[in-house]
């Protein structure tokens, strides 16, 4: 095991596997978010279930561990990569074959971490530890997550930041998904284009799916 984690290829496997785990998490997160469109009762019920179900709560530490592993190992590798090329070229004119996102995964990752800090302090941390208005649905008293979210989504600066962050997340995923599959060895000359297309499609669905909600609620707030 020490040989595995001591090798760059092993560390990359950790980044790839944790990345794919986060890719699955984002699907769940997006589905939950989309229930906002079904109205306060549905969203609050789902949010209440997510906040009380033992299986979901049990997954939280796993999620945090996956995220921290992904961040820590990527950062370690990025720093060692910088050391591998101490002097830059005077002129660089790459042939293509590499995307902007693939060359800037570290910067994209840092931007996503910064957004994540704002995002968690706005929602998850407040829902778990902060004081949130209560609402009664079908005789059950629960936190009014819908009001918390829609209030945030009526702020122009938050919606703007959120939308930009989703574009950056989309770029990170457009390379990240296919890169993770390549890292765990699931690639050859036949699957390459398929994985690239799948990764791109996933990135677009996730970025648009997440970004559309704050924009929708912001427009709705302006019209009312």
């Amino acid at each position, binding site marked *: 095991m020490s040989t595995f984690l001591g090798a760059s290829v092993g560390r990359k496997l950790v980044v790839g596997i944790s990345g794919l785990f986060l890719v699955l998490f984002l699907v769940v997160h997006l589905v939950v978010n989309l229930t906002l469109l079904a109205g306060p009762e549905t969203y609050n019920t789902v949010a209440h279930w997510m906040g009380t179900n033992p299986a979901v709560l049990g997954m939280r530490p796993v999620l945090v561990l996956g995220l921290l592993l992904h961040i820590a190992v990527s950062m370690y590798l990025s720093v060692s990569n910088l050391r*591998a090329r101490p002097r830059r*070229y005077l002129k660089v004119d790459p042939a293509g074959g590499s*995307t902007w996102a*693939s060359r800037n995964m570290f910067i994209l990752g840092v931007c996503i971490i910064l957004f994540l800090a704002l995002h968690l302090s706005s929602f998850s941390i407040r829902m778990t530890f902060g004081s949130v208005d209560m609402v009664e649905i079908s005789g059950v008293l629960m936190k009014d997550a819908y009001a918390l979210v829609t209030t945030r989504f009526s702020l122009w600066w938050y919606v703007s930041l959120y939308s930009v962050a989703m574009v950056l997340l989309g770029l990170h995923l457009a390379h990240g998904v296919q890169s993770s599959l390549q890292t765990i*060895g699931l690639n050859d000359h036949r699957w390459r284009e398929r994985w690239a297309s799948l990764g791109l499609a996933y990135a677009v669905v996730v970025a648009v799916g997440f970004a559309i909600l704050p924009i929708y609620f912001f427009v709705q707030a302006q019209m009312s």
Partner: protein
Amino acid sequence: MKIKLKIWRQESAEAKGGFVSYDLEGVSKEMSFLEMLDYLNSTLIEGDEEPVAFEHDCREGICGCCSLFINGRPHGPAGETTTCELRMTQFEDGSEIVIEPWRSRVFPVIRDLIVDRSAFDKILQAGGFISANTGAAPEANSIPIAKHKADEAFDAAICVGCGACVASCPNGSAMLFVAAKVSQLALLPQGRAEAKKRVRKMVAKMDELGFGACGNIGACEAECPKGIKISHIARLNREFLRASI
């Protein structure tokens, strides 16, 4: 034709280098890139100046000796071409050509445009071989190998070890080189016996030498003069995973 050259000059490994510009007249479109440098050197020698040191040997694209980062790309602008195969027809009359050595912590500059690529030899010495007794060549059909496997092994085996993958990778990673060497042996039955040990040792040596980690960026593949594909890197990853569990 007349060209302007901007070349990295460095007296020794310890010396601080810098770019020096040269105006060169009388360059023929029919010249190869290295012939153009030979011509530059002859004019420098005539003028009692030190010629530019650059590495070359076969001049037919198979030895991997020539390198040079030309106008922002390893081996110049032609694509799937080594510097020795590059012709001056690729450049316009009056154009400026920037020539730099490979940039990598693991490939230190020895002099001018020559870098020390012995790190690649060390990786091969760590496991890029088959421990079999040599002798007379065996009968070719005694071990049947599927056509597609033989083709893939050959595609990997055409790596000349020039280092363009390291030179072009933003991370300074040698994964395409190591993957090609691991692949060519892993795909053949003769190489399977030591496959696990080989991939572990070669990756460990690559890391120990200080190459960066692969980010699946794809710049190496785009610049490889032999067109080696990064699907070989996926095979290395599979081999490494298989060797670790």
